[in-house]
């Protein structure tokens, strides 16, 4: 046997780059597209079809299209074959904001910007309470947004609860942004700054108390500032267009996750009553078309609720859509829960985590991540399904678009608005699905 001293030392030879391959583009095409007769025929067919479709679509939508005209008749006189985009452009405002008053539309824009801005600090990895950003967005932003969109003198016309929560939301947003700045400057967060103060009152869970202190202080300040603002009220009936579509869709999307989680956990529960109840809700909601659920919400709900209850169509529809999307989401999440290996539950159990902690800290984060593609698909279908609210008469973008054909100037203009919102939906939905693919890839790196 060789002793260690006699052994030769192994030094790996350095890695090198492959010699450049002799594969040219032409050869690549040949090897992939024309490598057999069948394949060649297919290739030619595909090219022909693509050419025909693209040529026709471009001619109609771009080359022969009319962009400026006073009414439909003028469009037809200019170019009978092409699209008449002028009507869509004329109605653009209505398509976007529905019946929202002209001079108040900035509030819609601001609300959307705030919604996005709320999430921007997520880009900073070191920000304090990073996980709370998303949670607060779901839980608090709606109050702020609702106040912006509905208006009313703050604290006077708005209800007490709404006032309080709007202040809390505003305070939280300010806190997120202050924390963001502090994190960028590499300084301790507000919570840490308030830590000594909180430590005076309590020994345990001090960081939670210090968070609460900072939040409440900021909320009171922002509430005071907001109370100086009086936005003219805008009734819910005036919401419409893309704005309404997005409100319904985003509400349904955000609510579908908590509802779905609860239903899914309930369905997996060992307690028979809970299990069967959740199973019933999920299966019933999934068995019927959304249209019937919507119809039910607007025709039957008023019958089943107390007669003096103020209901508006939007809230009825939101209820229906949430229940519906929640049931679908529950099935996705259940799939995710089932895919989590038993070992994860056991590992959590041996650490001593209870049921809810195991779910919140260990299982749900994984299940949701695992199901991102399915969840995203559900989100996309929720967004698409919101067009159905037009059938029961909510003035979402679809109904606004269909209304163009009833306008005096644009009587009968039908295809162009549809084409326009098709493109819009395609962009939105495709964007979402690409984002989900991206997200999935990014999360996979961690695995």
């Amino acid at each position, binding site marked *: 046997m060789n002793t260690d001293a006699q052994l030769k030392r192994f030094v790996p030879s350095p890695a090198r780059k492959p010699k450049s391959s002799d594969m040219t583009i032409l050869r690549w095409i040949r090897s992939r597209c024309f490598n057999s007769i069948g394949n060649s025929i297919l290739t030619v067919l595909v090219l022909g079809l693509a050419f025909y479709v693209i040529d026709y679509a471009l001619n109609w939508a771009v080359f022969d299209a009319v962009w400026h005209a006073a009414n439909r008749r003028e469009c037809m006189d200019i170019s009978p074959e092409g699209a008449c985009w002028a009507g869509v452009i004329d109605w653009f405002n209505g398509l976007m904001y529905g019946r929202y008053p002209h001079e108040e539309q900035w509030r819609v824009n601001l609300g959307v910007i705030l919604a996005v801005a709320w999430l921007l600090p997520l880009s900073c990895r070191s920000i304090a309470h990073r996980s709370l950003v998303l949670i607060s967005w779901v839980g608090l932003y709606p109050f702020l947004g609702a106040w912006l969109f509905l208006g009313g003198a703050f604290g006077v016309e708005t209800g007490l609860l709404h006032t309080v929560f709007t202040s809390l939301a505003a305070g939280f947003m300010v806190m997120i942004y202050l924390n963001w700045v502090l994190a960028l400057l590499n300084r301790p967060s507000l919570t840490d700054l308030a830590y000594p103060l909180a430590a005076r009152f309590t020994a345990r869970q001090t960081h939670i108390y210090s968070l609460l202190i900072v939040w409440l202080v900021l909320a009171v300040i922002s509430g005071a500032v907001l109370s100086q603002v009086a936005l003219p009220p805008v009734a819910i009936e005036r919401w419409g267009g893309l704005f309404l579509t997005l409100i319904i869709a985003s509400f349904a999307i955000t609510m579908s996750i908590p509802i779905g989680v609860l239903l899914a956990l309930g369905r997996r529960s060992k307690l028979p009553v809970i299990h069967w109840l959740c199973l019933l809700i999920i*299966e019933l909601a999934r068995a*019927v078309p959304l249209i019937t659920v919507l119809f039910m919400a607007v025709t039957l709900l008023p*019958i*089943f609720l107390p007669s003096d209850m103020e209901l508006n169509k939007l809230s009825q529809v939101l209820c229906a859509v949430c229940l519906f999307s929640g049931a679908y989401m529950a099935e996705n999440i259940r799939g995710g829960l089932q895919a989590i290996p038993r070992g994860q539950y056991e590992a959590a159990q041996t650490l001593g985590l209870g049921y809810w902690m195991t779910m919140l800290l260990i299982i749900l984060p994984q299940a949701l991540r695992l199901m991102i593609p399915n969840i995203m698909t559900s989100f996309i279908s929720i967004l698409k399904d919101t067009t159905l609210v037009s059938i029961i008469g909510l003035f979402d973008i679809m109904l606004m678009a269909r209304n163009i054909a009833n306008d005096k100037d644009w009587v009968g203009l039908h295809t162009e608005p549809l084409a326009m919102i098709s493109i819009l939906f395609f962009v939105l*939905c*495709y964007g979402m699905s690409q984002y989900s693919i991206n997200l999935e890839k990014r999360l996979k790196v961690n695995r």
Partner: protein
Amino acid sequence: MNEASAPPVRQRGWAGLTSFLNRDSTRGNVIQGLTLLFVLCLIVYLGSNAAYNLDRLGMMFGFDFLSSTSGFDISWSLIPYDPSMTYWRVFMVGIVNTLVLSFNVILFGTIIGTIVGILRLSSNPLVAQLARCYVEVVRNVPLLIQIIFWFTAVFSALPPPRRGYMLGDLFFLNNRGFYFPSPQGDISFFWFLGAFVLFAAAAWLLRRKAQQARINQTGNHKALRTGWLVWGVALVLACVIGNGFIEWSVPALDGFNLEGGQYVPVAFGAAFVAMTVYRSAAIAESVRAGMESIDRGQHEAARTIGFSRFQTLRLILIPQAIRAIIPPLANSWLVAVKDSSLAVAIGFPELVSVFMQTSINQTGRAIEIISMVMGFYIFVSLTISYLLNKYNARVQYKVM
């Protein structure tokens, strides 16, 4: 670790009660009891509200309206219908139309979807990309828009009856619909059907026999082919024999429209095409996912044995993928049935259109009608999931 070292002892009195309450089974029962109570209260509350409201609004509840005359016409119905028939008949017409539409969508959507799904995995990048474009475009635009698009932009744009397309004076396609000859008289048609069923059954038995023979000894696939052949011959025979008994009614131009024969309206065509296209995209995705879910090792094992691409697909991949594909597929079918309700937008007389819209408008019986419609969809959904579960139980891989 200090807190945990003291072993707890059995406690009595209050402490015993808390320990009783702490026990998992007790907590479970309490939670369940509360839930049950809550649900019951909710039902009672909603019920009493409904009773009060119905009374207040002077609405009636009951299914007596089903036997009254509807008074409105339905543009297309597969079962005999005229305005002097009852609402129950309207319900039936709606169901039949819904089922016919969704059955066709399911059938063709599945076929096209499977093809597109497999094309998406093609090694020809052009083909794969085209299939991808198809799927992406179709599934990212709301179905409602697509239905309206197909109706207004394509089917309505067909030429009118007098200038429509025709095939040998038998089949006609125009902007009213698709017309084709139909057998006249019920009795002879049932003869034909009977002959067909009989021959099909005989052929099936033969083929089964042949298959068994193949399994037992003979090695080649001749027997199998014979089985198929017999089936084909039987089919032709059934047609020929059946034809002798049948009188055909052939559509012909008369006045405004084609008279005679059978037809399907363009609304059906538009709804059918839009929904088939939409469904096929969804199914293509399931098929692709199913194919991709198969372990790479299976491809490799097949390749090392020497199977060609096609043989691998046919012998190894598809039989396995089927198991992964069937559940989402069945789900897709279910969605197809539900989606058929959107055909209301272009006036195809399906269940929601004739019953939940027109009939509610005429009678005002919202609770009854909506619950009947929901009941129908729930029934369909339960049936499909029952069949699916049966199937799943059958095809699961045998494990220890």
